[in-house]
């Protein structure tokens, strides 16, 4: 089992998460050329080694995360929220108050 340390929920089994895709892809502007869209949608580097990828904590806080993970050893190097807004919310609010808020719900 891969264990993923969600910045919002703590360390959990990867079965709580859904793998998204390659996080290095930058989608081009809507009116970009067919070639640029083709590359973003269909072509992959498919690295053997450390790659940056998106995961969704679908059976947890439902946040999208960006994870650096080794595709050969499954070792995880870093986990961070995918959206900058979340990232700043996280630094603004200390973690323990976050979980209290969850309990009050």
């Amino acid at each position: 089992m891969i264990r993923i340390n969600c910045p919002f929920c703590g360390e959990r089994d990867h079965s709580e998460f859904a793998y998204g895709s390659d996080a290095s892809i930058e989608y081009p502007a809507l009116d970009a050329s067919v070639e640029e869209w083709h590359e973003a949608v269909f072509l992959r580097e498919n690295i053997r080694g450390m790659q940056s990828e998106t995961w969704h904590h679908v059976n947890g806080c439902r946040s999208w995360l960006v994870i650096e993970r080794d595709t050969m050893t499954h070792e995880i190097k870093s986990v961070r929220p995918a959206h900058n807004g979340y990232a700043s919310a996280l630094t603004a609010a200390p973690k323990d108050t976050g979980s209290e808020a969850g309990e009050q719900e």
Partner: protein
Amino acid sequence: MTRYSAWSVFKNGLSGHKNWGRAWRDPEPKTEYDVVIVGAGLHGLATAYYLSKNHGVKNIAVVEKGWLGGGNAGRNTTIVRSNYMMPGNRDFYEHSLQLWENLSHDLNYNVMFSQRSHISLLHTPAARDGAARRYNTMRLTGTDAEIWDLETLKREVPHLNYNNARFPIMGAAVQRRAGSARHDAVAWGYARGADQHGVDIIQNCEVTGVNRDGGKVTSLETSRGTIKAGKVGFAVAGNTSRLWGMAGLGKLPIETHKLQAFVSEPLKPLLDQVVVFGVGGAHFYISQSDKGGMVFGGDLDWYKSYAQRGNLPIVQDVAECATSIMPCLGRVRLLRHWSGVMDMSMDGSPFICKTPVDNLYLNAGWNYGGFKASPASGWHFADLIANDRAGRKIEHFNLQRFERGINIDERGAGPDPKLHG
């Protein structure tokens, strides 16, 4: 090299079966070959066999980093069928099935191809309609196909969960000519056949670099020295992107994912056919090997991986599927489980095509369908390499199809490799 026959078994029996010759040689690599195939899986070995047999190419090597058949060739659940619907796949897989039907004779090697029927269970009216459309397409294009009602299914496969299932079984879509084969025997049969035609199969020989002179490959760097090559074919299953990178070619519409398989302790004869269960999130296929083990598998591990080892959530998923469809398996013990890494492509369909480099050819993207495809894949890849043009049956399997919007997406899952189950 001995031709296998009842007579040769009898003759060798007289000396206690101790004097059988080698099935293939173990040659040192030469410095130069007309064609070098990278990867001694089923596709690489079949390609070398047909290159020498159908096209008379003489000076061929297959180089393999491990031992032949140690990759996905020896890891799959051995299902062979041709119930594909999309143009491009339809003809190709049917041709493959026809090659399977004569493969043991052609190779003089018993690959134990058993046309025991492939039965996809149907649980909803919508699934039945979808299957009727697909199976009618098959019949209209020359392949056998049947839809069974519940009574027929109960008679043919009595042990399924007909009483108490969360999704009651309504019937099944069936291809009787489909079935299974012994995967190791297929690798060995092709290896022996290729070797008899003079192909050098070089094991423990990892390709570590691809040397180019502009638009041509000149040689391969390997763990056993530099090998010059007139033409090069890649057939390296889950490692395609790595070889592609060595050739300096950038990105591909491929991700590497792993798939697990399972075998139980041997049981007395229980299941005569291949049975497939897929409703809601479930995806499960099962058959019984000639030794009695229940052989089964399910989905990919859902995340990209080059590790040839599986993870626990899929073990649980697959066990749940097994007991929900065949509750009688509840107390059966698992003997082994393992995993293989495969190229999952953006539409779930393969590539047998030319590349931006003149004398480099690609055979890749085999997803779940690569075992059943291996005879036709080798046949047409050999034709492509020998004649430097794609034959009609593989003209759709090129790298340009995504740019041109003619994806071959059997499942309609979109450009997300992990979804093409």
